[in-house]
């Protein structure tokens, strides 16, 4: 059905597009665009205009801050999966961080509002598969978290075998790795509570899942 056909989707990081999952190691920041398959190409507006619209829609949605960790945007966290123009409607795909993340609804509403403010008719879809992982946080996002005082996720944790399993988490303030975990569960579902033994400051650690 022609009207159901989706127009090209746009996502800011090559290889980070749903559904392939994470792309550890790939750090290149390439603006990429799916090319529509030939039968549907005729239905599109001129490609320059199209591209421009896609970019604008993505930029509007991508700028939305996370309500619980406002130093990073939904794009930095990798929870904004894509924004596509479908029959003139900007369709944003958002994935929750945790099953019970209470911010999911707030994020969806904020993304929808941002798209409307940018002049789009908008719809937000929740995708749960594949599951979000902290590997999808962009390098910029990790830097922003650290600057904000939240230690970004370390790659090696979350093994259930490592009972009392120690991971090394560097203090986001002084950089010391002389730190200890106070609690596995912190102020929000996505964070654990740690403290630095060098500078004595407590800090949040963004858990690796």
């Amino acid at each position: 059905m022609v009207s159901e056909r989706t127009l090209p989707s746009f996502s800011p990081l090559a290889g980070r597009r749903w559904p392939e999952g994470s792309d550890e190691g790939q750090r290149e920041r390439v603006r990429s665009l799916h090319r529509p398959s030939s039968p549907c190409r005729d239905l599109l507006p001129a490609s320059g205009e199209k591209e421009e619209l896609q970019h604008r829609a993505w930029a509007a949605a991508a700028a939305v801050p996370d309500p619980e960790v406002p130093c990073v945007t939904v794009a930095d966290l990798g929870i904004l999966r894509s924004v596509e123009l479908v029959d003139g409607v900007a369709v944003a795909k958002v994935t929750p961080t945790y099953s019970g993340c209470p911010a999911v609804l707030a994020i969806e509403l904020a993304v929808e509002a941002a798209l409307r403010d940018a002049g789009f008719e908008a719809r937000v879809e929740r995708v749960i598969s594949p599951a979000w992982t902290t590997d999808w946080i962009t390098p910029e996002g990790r830097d922003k978290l650290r600057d904000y005082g939240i230690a970004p996720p370390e790659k090696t944790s979350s093994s259930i075998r490592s009972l009392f399993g120690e991971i090394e988490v560097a203090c986001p303030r002084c950089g010391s790795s002389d730190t200890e975990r106070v609690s596995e569960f912190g102020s929000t579902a996505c964070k654990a509570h740690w403290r630095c033994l060098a500078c004595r400051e407590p800090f949040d650690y963004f858990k690796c899942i």
Partner: protein
Amino acid sequence: MGAAVAIDRETLVTLLVRLADDHLVLGHRLSEWCGHAPMLEEDLAMPNMALDLIGQARALYAYAAEIEGRGRSEDDFAYLRREREYLNCLLVERPNGDFAQTMLRQLYVAAYMEPFWKAAASSSDATLAGIAAKAVKEVAYHIRHAGEWVVRLGDGTEESRRRMEAAIEELAPYIDELFEDDAVTAAAAEAGIAPQPSSLRPAFDRIVGPIFAEAGLTFVTPPYSQRGGRKGMHGEAMGFLLADLQHIQRTYPGATW
């Protein structure tokens, strides 16, 4: 899991509701600790785990409602059924008891769910697979957290050990029910949707065994096993739990905020 054999709608809904009820009821039990935990960190940890569980329950109820196709919502499932319509296992509805008992129950359920979600992550049902892929990581944290407490208390003071041993005895009759197969689970396994509960026992033992060993604790074989939750037959505790869980919706039908 096996090739795609069709499963009828009612069976799939039953399977999903059982799972969802396990998570809702345990999430509710954990939330009862909010404001009462022995230390601030635990006061954060238990509602955090409850949030994971209730989030998983919501996704499962919403999916069950969609498949059922009778216009019920996730809230209708959570708040507006009668006791006999809840299909959770008896373990999750057991009263919290003391902190030792709550943590042991948490370990048992997490050690049961971890292999379940792992298998369900490659389910032939894409929605369940998606829920599972997320849940399997969350449940790993629950195992670590509860496991650490079981070790700490089991291998702690005389008093903490006494309490952990009492918890083992108290909860022992409710473990076998977790691993019971029946026509619903058989149909789901046949269709490649979810594993047979009995197949999860070795993985459960592999998780709990080393934790008990480290804590110097031993399993006790219960004199009898309690069953019936999957058919809607619950213990006395369940009615009180539901009264607490449902009273807003029962008093003010359709209340929202």
